[in-house]
């Protein structure tokens, strides 16, 4: 009756990831990276269980796919906002492998009240 454990785990991580994106929780977002990699590795192995668990697994995978779509959509918004934010500051969103940003040009008018 239980779904495949890896599918269950994948769905749980993707739900958490989407929630972290929605609430702008960077710590959870960073923690999810390793967990997602591990869950992905799990999906490759493991034997599928008997007939009743198949239905539950399909449901779980459908929910995981839905969470993935949610993540992609929220991620696209973040990318969009970052690009807009950087463009408004007269800078491109380019950054190096170590995470360093290029010096930004401050646009003081943006600090002003609406």
């Amino acid at each position: 009756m239980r779904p495949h454990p890896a599918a269950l785990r994948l769905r749980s991580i993707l739900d958490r990831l989407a929630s972290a994106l929605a609430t702008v929780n960077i710590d959870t977002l960073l923690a999810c990276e390793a967990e997602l990699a591990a869950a992905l590795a799990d999906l490759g192995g493991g034997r599928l269980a008997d007939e009743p668990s198949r239905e539950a697994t399909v449901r779980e995978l459908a929910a995981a796919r839905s969470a993935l779509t949610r993540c992609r959509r929220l991620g696209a918004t973040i990318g969009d906002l970052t690009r807009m934010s950087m463009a408004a500051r007269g800078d491109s969103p380019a950054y190096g492998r170590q995470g360093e940003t290029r010096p930004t040009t401050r646009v003081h008018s943006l600090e002003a009240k609406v």
Partner: protein
Amino acid sequence: MSGLFSALTSATRALEAQRFGLELTGQNIANVNTPGYARREVVLASVPPNDLFSAGNGVDVEAVRAARDRMLERRLQMERPAEQRDAAIADTLSVVDAAIGRPGQSIDALLDAFFDSASRLSEDPTSTPARYETIRAGQSLASAFRDMAGRMDTEQHAIDTQIQGAVDEINDLAGRFASLNSRIGAATDGSTIELQLRDEQSTVLDRLSQLVDVDTVARSGGGVDLTIGGGHPLVIGASAIRLEATSTPPDGLLALACNGQTITSDIAGGRLGGFLQVRDVFIPGYLDRLDALAYQVATEVNALHADGYDAAGNAGGAFFVAPAAVAGAAASLALDPDLEADPQLLAAAGVPAAGDNQTARAIAGLRDMRVMNGGQSTLSEAWAQFAYRVGSDTQAARHEQLSRADIVKQVAALADAVSGVSLDEEAMMMLRFQRAYEANAQFFRAVDESIDTLLQMIGS
């Protein structure tokens, strides 16, 4: 003495500035849950010395600033109307969905009952009770079509009530916004009063953007102009332009006008946009399908009935009143009044001989005939497709709303996170967040493929 006096003045000024800063902190804490309140920041500036031989005159409050991020606020203004539009669509469509009825308990059941009665008539074509039963089943079916079309019409008018409510609220909010524009224009630039007025304006704008897609244009004098529906002015400075909702023939539904110009079809966002879309796009689409089904039922049954013979051996007349056109067929579907009055006029026979049942059998056989959608579906299947369409539209709107609500929540959280930090910190924070997302996103393709593989393995 003047040096000592100057030092004392300088110290007093510094104390005043710090006291003001503390007051502002208290104000920020007190308003932590106030809608529209933006955190205040005090901007301190050193007071220059009077001459070359003085160290300076301490510190003074230069300005108070509200920590707002214009870009994020604008993004919220863009997302909110879409979210509220989808919410309004889902809310109103769920009422239509409920009106359609459950599978097997609506028009589909009455279609079955009608064909069952024709089948029973074919077993005993001379039976008067069987004739009565077929006529009653036909009456029930016609009545169900009329009721369903009536419910759609009622729902369109119920939506109009909500449209009127939204228009009233928009006018009220536009009036308040214009008044705030006027007061902001009169307030001293950068004063706490001005900031308070802007907070209020932000709350009004937030509510407005839930009702309609609204665009803002900053005025040079400090106010903000508002336009709706892709450029129709709603507020210009201190003047609000009234949005009018007037009933229009032939159906009496409300049309929206601004400045004498009809703008109904230009309103696409907010709850108002959602209401209009359901009223003017979704429900008419459903009515078209319902009309097509009712028209086909009437014309197919009538054609078979007219080819048959009644109990007296006369050629059959109409079973249903022949619909004049597809449009409006459901609302006007009715049994032929002559047949209703005399069941012996029911043509069950295919030849003018008592006891023949060919026409009754042909009418019962319509159940399995693919007469809808260009020969693709039976009448019952066409109904099922119609009911499924309404259900899936409702679900899609709800899903879209939840998805947009997520984005609104995200942008609001981001606005909270960056509010009050410097632009550099804000940019850094957004970049870090984006990088953290991208670290996860690198696995998304693999996750997608793995889900596909697993589903194939399971054989679903």
